[in-house]
């Protein structure tokens, strides 16, 4: 299997799906002539032309809604937000139109659309350009929310998202575009939505991590192995629907769990996972569920402050030791 970056894996997924299905197209700011603000769409305009790869004005609400309308009548748009920070402008169309159309039309109008782009913390771009948005979207029934952490997951999940008949929020991690990994070349390679992946098996403590926190958790697990603690690292990959069964099974085995995320803790995805663990595995918990979240502040600019705001290996190690009653 070739080793490629997440950026290249996403590019492959989009290219393959546009080639595979006439109704698939991608639109967004700078996706065509500029080759993508983060180069995810590099080369696509050349290959498919301006009908399938469309530069939009800076008009997030407008092109998000346009995508939903096109999906209502059978197209399968991929809408790129240059970053998910800008999706905030489009939330009316994502939430009020995309998420609810099937239901409020009594099942008549499905919305096969993917809203994708980078999200989470970036490097030193301060508060408005560096934030995790997944808990917003995960809140709404009707949406599916996907966050890959490896090149293979990025490709397999994006292809599934494009083929899915529901609106999918696909949040990539800006800092991870260059991360490398092996990716199958098979154009039919997909990874089903709604299935968590056990990134590392272990027996003592379960760490649930997504997106940027997956490699951080894996590093923490390595360190903890040296300290005699065996960690199981679970990447839910799909936040909604959440594969809680896999998480609960792991917690039943390890009896201790640390939930890592770079988003703010209040009303976050981990707050939900924590509640579900409590509801489903209360009798298996040997320690309170421990969250490791991003700082509850807008993202600062200064490098040292930014480092403090994003969870790192040390924070996860400390949390694991705490639930394992080692400190």
């Amino acid at each position, binding site marked *: 299997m070739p080793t490629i970056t997440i950026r290249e894996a996403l590019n492959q997924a989009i290219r393959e799906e546009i080639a595979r299905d006439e109704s698939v*197209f991608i639109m967004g700011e700078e996706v065509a002539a500029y080759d993508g603000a983060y180069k995810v769409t590099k080369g696509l305009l050349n290959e498919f032309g301006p*009908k399938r790869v469309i530069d*939009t*004005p800076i*008009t997030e*609400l*407008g*092109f*998000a*809604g*346009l*995508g*939903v*309308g*096109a*999906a*209502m*009548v*059978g*197209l399968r748009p991929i809408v790129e937000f240059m970053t998910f920070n800008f999706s905030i402008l489009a939330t*009316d*169309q994502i939430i*009020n*139109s995309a998420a609810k*159309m*099937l*239901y*409020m*039309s*009594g*099942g*008549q*109008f*499905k*919305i*096969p659309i993917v809203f994708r782009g980078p999200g989470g913390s970036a490097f030193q771009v301060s508060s408005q350009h560096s934030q995790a948005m997944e808990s917003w979207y995960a809140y709404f*029934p*009707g949406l*599916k929310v996907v966050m890959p952490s490896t090149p293979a997951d990025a490709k397999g999940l994006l292809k599934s998202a494009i083929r*899915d*008949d*529901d609106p999918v929020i696909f949040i990539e991690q800006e800092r991870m575009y260059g991360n490398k990994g092996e990716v199958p070349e098979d154009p039919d390679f997909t990874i*089903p*939505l*709604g299935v968590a992946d056990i990134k590392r098996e272990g027996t003592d403590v379960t760490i649930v991590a997504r997106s940027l926190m997956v490699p951080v958790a894996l590093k923490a697990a390595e360190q903890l192995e040296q300290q005699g603690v065996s960690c199981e690292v679970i990447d839910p990959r*799909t936040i909604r*629907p*959440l594969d*809680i069964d896999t998480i609960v099974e792991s917690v039943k085995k390890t009896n201790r769990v640390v939930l890592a995320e770079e988003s703010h803790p209040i009303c976050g995805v981990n707050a939900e996972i924590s509640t*579900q663990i409590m*509801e*489903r595995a209360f009798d298996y918990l040997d320690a309170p569920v421990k969250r490791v979240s991003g700082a509850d502040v807008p993202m600062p600019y200064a490098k040292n402050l930014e480092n403090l705001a994003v969870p790192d290996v040390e924070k996860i190690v400390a949390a694991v030791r705490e639930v394992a009653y080692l400190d």
Partner: protein
Amino acid sequence: MSKQTAAPPSRAGAEEQSSTSVIDAPAQDAPADVDKKQLARERDEVKERQKDRFTGLNKEQLIGLYRQMLLIRRFEEKSAEVYVAGKIGGFCHLYIGQEAVAVGAISAINKEDFVFASYREHGHALAKGMSARAIMAELFGKATGCSKGKGGSMHMFDKDLGFLGGHAIVGGQIPLATGAAFASMYRNSGEVTLCFFGEAAVNQGAFHESLNMAQLWKLPCIYICENNQYGMGTSLARAMSLRDIAQKGCAYEMASEFVDGMDVLAVREATMRAVQRARKESLPTLLEVRTYRFMGHSMSDPGNYRTRAEIEKYQERDPIKLFSASLLEEKIVDEKALEEIDKQIHEEVEDALRFADESPLPDAAELYTEVYANPIDPSRNRDR
């Protein structure tokens, strides 16, 4: 002149002191005392213009337009009646007074073409061919409703008839309609999309973002602004700096037109011009259709923001009475035929009411269906 119309006898040419036509008068300037004679004179002028537009339409088509407007009127009157009786929940935005807009515009397109509307959409749904039964049942929240009782008054849909919904966030349907038109352009499939919205939606960003893209990408979308002069209880004058909405097309180099929304044939003709532009040149159009809603914004509207006199002024131009007068004068129909139509429509509405009343409520299991087209272990989404 027929007794069928409630308008007072007119005396053409008398008392010409006002140069302002009623439809142009800003709502704020509505006179406390209406000059009935002046109103009647103006009405007659409009009627004469309307009769000039009969050319090119056969009797069936003309009667069909009348019939549809009257169906909407009677349907909405019945909705108000049963709403008050507690049979309809939530909001109920009535279309009475604006019938000529939906009927005139939708008469200019085909079955395959798409229609989007706002939350005041019962009339558009009927005009697009949806049955009074399915709409009334939806108002009643019944399983037989056009959205299976999940949408209600503000969310009527019919995929087969190209009715793509009532949408309840002001302006929310405008990008959606633009997207449907985009799909027609993308597939070169030839449909046009009609997008209805009230004048208050024009102040939303979604309107401007959509018109920009539609003109930029040459999308066959016709934006029909139903200017009924009030955004809920706020008059146009209090909400919009440039009140000439048709002019806003200039900002996007989009063709636009001002239309008398009390004349069903005027609306139809303007829409036909726009449809032609869409089909031939794949270009959008903005129509500002001046109209008036006779009822409140919703059933809970206290109506304290406008005077009785102002409402009466517009009722003098009731599009249905105006059109029936034209039809009688042109001898397209006689009184008896009109009575027969009224009777049929009465029966159709009563039938819809009975159907809605007798239909079952949605099954409790419906609560969890149709959240996802491809559900992934639906049990995970249920109550835990």
